[in-house]
């Protein structure tokens, strides 16, 4: 590990909390109340009072602002708040990274990374309406019927399959794996809904090359993670889950309008991966379990390759259902069911699942998991990625 980095093991995830996850539009609670419930759950899990929180980090223009949260929770001192800018859920790991920065700099002592979504209250991502004229980048896309998230990322996936001879079976394997893992997860929206090859192959096109099961869910709920110093975390529980590394990642002109990023066929993780592993002091082969954000399955293929967990050349052989499952696979993936089958909480659920794996209490536990990687938002302009580990992983 280079002297440049000093994050490794300095902060820990003291607690995680989630509300019940609902199908989109079905939450009985408004979004703000969901966030409060998730924060309370995370505090209970950490064994702290909510009054100890003095910092908030979120992403994706979360509507539930820290001043109102602090007021509702009756927090005596609000010392830090932070919003990471990117599209989609690309900031899930970034929110944890920013929380860690606040802890390490002494700007705050107990920071919550959170995200809430209630689509009955605020509308869906996958539907686009309206009749008013649009300008800027939207004017170069919407009049041509390119307006949903699936459509924004289908183009790159077409090009991935074309440039690297990636087989579509990789995408199917990822979908099948998520549904398989959801069957054991009591929180999962798709528990009780199994998926097999035939069902996947027969499912309708959303936009070629994405079928229905290549696309994430849309849900209501909220999730929260309590980030503190490792010293404090050790007072709270015997073996805290440590943050080994976290990184945001955008390449040269990755946000260029109308499909003009310089490097086109990318999950946006190429810049981050080298920093992430150096920071964490681990190598790709040390990663025991991976939570890789599925907005769309094609993005997961790119993410795994760019994190060094497989290559363009061997992806078709590595990314199979047998290899990706928690029970015996060589590259256990999305062990909660992820955004495809647990819940689309803009990826914070995947960060939490990485923490569960290190604690040893996942519903699809990987044996003796010491190092867990969780990334967020492939193909967006700025993605983010983190590695969590046990004290044992620190060496």
């Amino acid at each position, binding site marked *: 590990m280079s002297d440049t980095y000093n994050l490794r093991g300095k902060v820990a995830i003291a607690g995680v909390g989630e509300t019940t996850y609902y199908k989109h539009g079905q939450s009985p609670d408004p979004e703000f109340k969901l966030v409060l419930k998730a924060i309370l759950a995370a505090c209970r899990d950490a064994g702290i009072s909510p009054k100890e929180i003095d910092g908030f980090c979120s992403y994706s223009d979360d509507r539930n602002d820290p001043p109102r949260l602090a007021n509702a929770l009756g927090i005596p001192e609000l010392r830090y708040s932070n919003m990471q800018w990117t599209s989609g859920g690309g900031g899930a790991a970034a929110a944890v990274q920013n929380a860690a920065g606040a802890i390490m700099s002494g700007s705050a002592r107990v920071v919550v990374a959170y995200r809430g979504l209630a689509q009955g209250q605020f509308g869906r991502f*996958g*539907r*686009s*309406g*309206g*009749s*008013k*004229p*649009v*300008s*800027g*980048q*939207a*004017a*170069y*896309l*919407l*009049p*041509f*019927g*390119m*307006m*949903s998230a*699936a*459509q924004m990322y*289908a*183009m*790159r996936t*077409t*090009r991935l399959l*074309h440039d690297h001879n990636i087989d579509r079976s990789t995408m199917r394997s990822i979908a099948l794996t998520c549904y398989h893992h959801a069957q054991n997860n009591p929180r999962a929206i798709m528990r009780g809904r199994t998926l097999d090859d035939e069902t996947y192959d027969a499912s*309708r*096109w*959303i*936009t*070629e*090359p994405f079928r229905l099961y290549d696309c994430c869910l849309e849900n209501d709920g909220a999730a929260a993670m309590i980030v503190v110093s490792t010293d404090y975390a050790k007072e709270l529980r015997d073996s805290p889950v440590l943050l080994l590394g976290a990184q945001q990642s955008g390449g040269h*002109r990755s946000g*260029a*309008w*109308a*499909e*003009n990023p310089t490097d*086109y066929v990318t999950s946006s993780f190429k810049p981050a991966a080298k920093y992430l592993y150096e920071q964490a002091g681990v190598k790709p082969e040390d990663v025991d379990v991976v939570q890789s954000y599925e907005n769309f399955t094609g993005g997961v293929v790119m993410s795994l390759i760019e994190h060094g967990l497989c290559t363009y050349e061997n992806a078709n052989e590595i990314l199979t259902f047998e290899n990706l499952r928690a029970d015996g696979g060589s590259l256990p993936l999305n062990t909660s069911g992820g955004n495809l089958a647990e819940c689309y909480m803009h990826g914070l659920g995947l960060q939490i699942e990485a923490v569960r794996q290190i604690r040893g209490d996942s519903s699809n536990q990987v044996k003796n998991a010491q190092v867990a990687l969780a990334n967020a938002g492939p193909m967006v302009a700025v993605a983010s990625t983190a590695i969590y580990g046990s004290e044992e992983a620190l060496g």
Partner: protein
Amino acid sequence: MTRITNEIYLPGLRQPAPMPDGLDAPFWEGTLKSEIRVQKCLSCETHQWGPEWMCHSCNSMDIEWVVLESACRIYSWQRPHHPVHSALKDRGPYIIVVVEFPQADGLRMVGNLLGDSMQDVVIGSQVTPVFEQHLEATPPYALLQWEVA
């Protein structure tokens, strides 16, 4: 090479408007004159799209608008089936392409590929521009579309 049409490929979608700050007005003026206009840096001659107030290569703010030759090819594509907008409800599948201009620093643009919605689309195919005019709109505008050469 270049064609003009009044036939609307995807009726009922939101119409484009120039940016309020004026940045891309030359582009939209150009499509009404059946010209593909993009930015080119006066200092380092880099082309760029979408438009910006600065050249991304040398950071000069001295940028001109130039008319591109139409030679370009399909870079990527997709065929949406699921109607995400109410105006697309009965439309059925359609094709969106990303085209690239190799002679203009590889800049890319997004449009529809006109013709049979179920046609095979081949990356690398040469395409030519079709200016889809919406002259009855307020204000009038034209979309830059594509068809296989």
